[in-house]
């Protein structure tokens, strides 16, 4: 008997005419690890809410079909009982912590279940030990880092000892290290404790291989349901992006089983490159890639940081002797862990902070002395949260707001920008009613409407799916083609590899690596995209899928077809 059985489920959110879930059929066995992938608005989160009993209990709306949990209609199960069986962790840790200190937060769910103090104490102690939260058990929750908050949210649900753990993009707001920790915990809970885990994720390169089964959702339906290796090929054939780069690379080959991890990929590629690698025959041509940066040296400097030092009052030094020169038309990505000083450096570039020592020149102005007012007319700044920009009644008004503030009379640019950002249809729509991807585009449009020379983005890919990320990258690339300079601060190595020209890596307040992306990411073991990790040692400098296909496919394609045919004959 399956743990969950979903039969012909269709669901409409209140006051909507489009079904969020359409005629869904699904069975989930106890102990499975299921990965749910898909684009924004494909129904992933709605499915999670259905399985946790929040739809329609919390949201209302119209429901058709049945959801059975342990052969019982989920709607007939007492809410308290269901909460003991199914735990749900949401994507934004900031929006799921209600108590002021860590221990109280873990106790919150237990108090709601009405457990006795002895039982609560035991469970809290267990969870704190398992999740290694003892050092912060007395901490004020508002002071925790994003990763700690998400761990706490998970601990709070785990303390309720559910059989099923539904994780709705639990890593989307986290840096790679914290994300890895959450994913490893999920895997441990599944393998060592026997939890049934249903995980919705966008960072497929980190968790595709963890799952027993992958569900790929599209327009409220399950488009694919199967083992990761099985669905990779079908998905690639249909040109859908929801497969991690390594699996995507091999799915194009005629192989009996598609390698989906770096380890499997390297194992497969090893024999083809062993001979050529040992003789040094394989060398990727980085010369052409350096050409763009070589040309840029003649361009004028847009951002210049000279011997920049900064320490917050009463704190440690955050920036230490930072020197950086960014030329006109460059697409620069700044990478680094939390606390590396990326955001502080960004605040200096935008003139929001004054340096302790050193000089900051942006667009020829001394920002370190005069602040942001001198440069803001020609600088666009997009913060981590697009919602910070949205408060007008319509999308058009958002753009007009910026133009009015800068006293720009020519409003014809609005039509052009709306067209370029595919927002013309939502011109008169309230921006808060738009999807997350559209909101981000409106926020970006509202700052690009002044035709800035410098565009600065802080973590723009957080919580963004493959398609939207690609869309954003292309928009930014087009801006550089128009002569603007783009600076992106991110943790997203895949984004950097795909779209940046130059990569700057920071560590503990210092720039530790700076150069053309192939030189920086290609040399790094840890800060390398999945394809880069797979090709390291075989074909140095290859970072993206397109590059890998270009360099490696011709070498192995013929051989794989021949060997596969031979295997089939055998």
């Amino acid at each position, binding site marked *: 008997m399956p743990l969950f059985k979903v039969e012909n489920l269709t669901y409409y959110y209140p006051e909507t005419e489009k079904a969020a879930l359409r005629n869904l059929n699904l069975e989930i066995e106890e102990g499975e690890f299921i990965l749910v992938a898909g684009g924004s608005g494909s129904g992933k989160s709605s499915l999670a809410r259905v399985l946790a009993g929040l739809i329609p209990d919390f949201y209302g709306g119209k429901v058709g079909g049945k959801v059975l949990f342990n052969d019982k209609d989920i709607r007939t199960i007492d809410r308290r009982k269901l909460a003991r069986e199914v735990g749900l962790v949401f994507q934004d840790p900031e929006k*799921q912590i209600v108590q002021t200190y860590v221990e109280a937060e873990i106790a919150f769910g*237990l108090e709601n279940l009405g457990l006795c103090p002895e039982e609560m*104490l035991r469970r809290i102690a267990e969870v704190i030990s398992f999740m290694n939260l003892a050092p912060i058990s007395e901490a004020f929750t508002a002071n925790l880092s994003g990763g700690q908050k998400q761990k706490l949210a998970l601990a709070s649900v785990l303390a309720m000892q559910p059989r099923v753990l539904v994780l709705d993009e639990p890593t989307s707001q986290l840096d790679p290290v914290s994300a890895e920790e959450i994913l490893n915990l999920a895997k441990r809970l599944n393998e060592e404790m026997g939890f049934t885990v249903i995980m919705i994720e966008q960072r497929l390169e980190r968790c595709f291989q963890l799952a027993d089964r992958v569900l790929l959702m599209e327009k409220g339906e399950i488009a694919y349901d199967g083992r990761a290796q099985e669905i990779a090929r079908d998905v690639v054939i249909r040109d859908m992006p929801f497969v991690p780069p390594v699996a995507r690379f091999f799915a194009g080959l005629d192989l009996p089983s598609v390698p989906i991890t770096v380890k499997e990929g390297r194992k497969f590629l090893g024999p083809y490159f062993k001979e050529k690698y040992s003789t040094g025959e394989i060398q990727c041509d980085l010369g052409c890639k350096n050409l763009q940066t070589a040309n840029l040296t003649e361009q004028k400097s847009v951002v210049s940081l000279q011997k920049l030092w900064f320490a917050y009052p009463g704190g440690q030094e955050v920036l230490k002797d930072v020197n950086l020169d960014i030329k006109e038309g460059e697409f620069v990505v700044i990478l680094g862990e939390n606390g590396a000083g990326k955001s502080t450096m960004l605040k200096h570039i935008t003139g929001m902070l004054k340096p302790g020592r050193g000089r900051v020149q942006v667009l020829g102005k001394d920002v370190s002395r005069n602040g942001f007012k001198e440069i803001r007319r020609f600088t666009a700044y997009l913060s981590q949260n697009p919602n910070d920009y949205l*408060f007008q009644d319509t999308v058009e008004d958002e753009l007009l707001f910026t133009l009015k503030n800068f006293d720009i009379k020519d409003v014809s640019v609005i039509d052009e920008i709306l067209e370029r950002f595919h927002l013309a249809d939502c011109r008169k729509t309230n921006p*808060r009613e738009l999807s997350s991807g559209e909101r981000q585009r409106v926020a970006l449009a509202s700052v690009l409407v002044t035709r800035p020379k410098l565009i600065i983005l802080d973590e723009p890919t957080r919580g963004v799916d493959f398609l939207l990320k690609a869309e954003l990258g292309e928009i930014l690339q087009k801006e550089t083609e128009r002569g603007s300079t783009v600076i992106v601060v991110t943790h997203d190595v895949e984004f950097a590899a795909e779209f940046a020209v130059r990569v700057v890596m920071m560590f503990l307040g210092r720039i530790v690596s700076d150069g053309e992306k192939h030189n920086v990411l290609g040399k790094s073991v840890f800060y390398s995209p999945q394809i880069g990790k797979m090709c390291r040692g075989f074909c140095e400098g290859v970072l993206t899928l397109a590059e890998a296909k270009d360099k490696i496919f011709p070498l192995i394609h013929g051989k794989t077809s021949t060997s596969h045919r031979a295997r089939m004959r055998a």
Partner: protein
Amino acid sequence: MFDKLFYQEKGFFLQSFHPAAVLVYLCVFLVLSLLYENPLYLLALLFLLAFLIRGVDGMEAWEGFLKAGVFLMLMVMIINPLVIRSGATIIWHGPAVPYLGKLNISMEAMYYGAASGIRLLVLISIFCLYNQMINPDRVLKLFSRVAGKSVLMIALSTRMFPTMVRDLKRIKEVQQFRGVDFDEGSLWEKARKYSCLYNVLLLSSLEGSMEIAESMQARAFGSGKRSVYSRNMLRPRDIICTGGSFLALSAAIWGLRYGCGLYTFYPEADFLIKDSTTLIALSVVLFYLSMPLILNEGWNYCRFLKSKI
């Protein structure tokens, strides 16, 4: 700087008391500071508070509290002699001023102002000690059984406040980069600019509140009667502290019945120490009130006492 004014877990012995014991102790302090009129008694309370604040490493915070307190004390000392005419020892005959009449500054009025100022400092110091000695969440939790929803609401607000401050700062930066000058324009224009700022915050908070409610529902909030988790433990130190507080209060009331702690300022100021009973009553009260300090010393220097409390 402001962080220092609020509770920080420093692992001191004086921070390890049960919140109920600390509340009782501080309430007794509060009552005594209001009942006592004798400046000597008030000064003794102030000194005791200073030792306790030092015991929780709160001198820096106390300094902050005292800055405001001393200013108020000086104001009281200045204003009181100007409006009070009851003193017999006139030290300055001033001119007549409208509304106040002839300004005759008496020593007793100044003295009363100073004593009131000390009382004010004692009250401020009690709140400072409260902030340094006890985690406000633990105090809040004490009332969970009787007012669970109100306590949760306060906890949620406390938890959200720093986040909202951070959000507000970020949104302000975003608006400044979109050309908004918050420090320019008339008062009306500034108000309009700030209203836009708070509008963004309000819209985002409303959206956020739905997500928080959803997370609470997913964790069975509102599914039935809640139980209360308390991590507070009652130890011998709490019983000694509470016992000491009640004994101090009883001794003080007994002393007040015989005039110990009372004081007459007008028309002529009384003696600070009328007789030995004044000092004996004060010593008894101070001894009982010093229980946390004595235990603190025992915790630090006496292994036997440490193992017993």
